[in-house]
């Protein structure tokens, strides 16, 4: 089935998936060759992407929000990836699938009829 989403929603989701996948590769797999399963679906008016990995269990949604109001000299960049993931999507949820590993679900509303 073809997915319908506007350009902005797609761009935002690409950014969020890039940030999430990078965190999995760097922090979860620690740069070791491994697999990430990425499932893209449309659920109602939302574009939904699920990332599944077999890295050690980690729930990025529990990371404290970044304070982007801090001056640059006090800014920490360690949580910037999850911060951008949150900012570019409508929701980010985490669960441990029955088969184990991590599953991160990103949702982004797309524009209605006549999607481009």
């Amino acid at each position: 089935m073809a997915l319908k989403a506007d350009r902005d929603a797609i761009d935002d989701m690409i950014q969020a998936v890039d940030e999430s996948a990078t965190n999995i590769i760097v922090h979860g797999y620690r740069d070791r060759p491994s697999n990430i399963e990425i499932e893209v679906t449309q659920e109602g008016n939302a574009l939904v992407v699920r990332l599944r990995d077999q890295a050690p269990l980690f729930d990025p949604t529990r990371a404290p929000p970044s304070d982007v109001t801090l001056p640059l000299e006090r800014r920490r960049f360690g949580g910037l990836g999850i911060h951008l993931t949150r900012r570019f999507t409508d929701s980010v949820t985490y669960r441990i699938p029955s088969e184990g590993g991590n599953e991160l679900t990103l949702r982004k509303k797309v524009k209605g009829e006549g999607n481009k």
Partner: protein
Amino acid sequence: MNISVNQTQGRVPVAVLSVQGDLDASNYQELIAKARELYHTGTHQILLDLSGASFVSSSGLVAIHSIALLLHGEQPPDLEQGWSAIHAVGRGLVAGPQQHLKLLNPQPKVDRTLEKAGLKEFFEIHADLATAIASF
């Protein structure tokens, strides 16, 4: 990603560092390394031309911040120590817009990333090359 450098002369010498393509976790260290090379050969003002950057991830933002740190005379992050060192950046810069690193013409998508990361207020962003060079 391709990086090119063009040395220009305004009131002071300015290196225009142009990024073409995606700036992400796979290549952000190349941009830091290029800036470090320029700095060590006497460059102290960099205009980062983002007009050709189609995508900038958080890693790219870390690179931009690291270059600002470098040009401010702070110890640049040790790339050999990997992400733990990169994540330690974020201190050492004075508050307010950076005077030694300015940005040129980011595409709207990249501009939104800068905004959502809360970084726009820390960098002068110019839409015109001549104006940008003259601003240093």
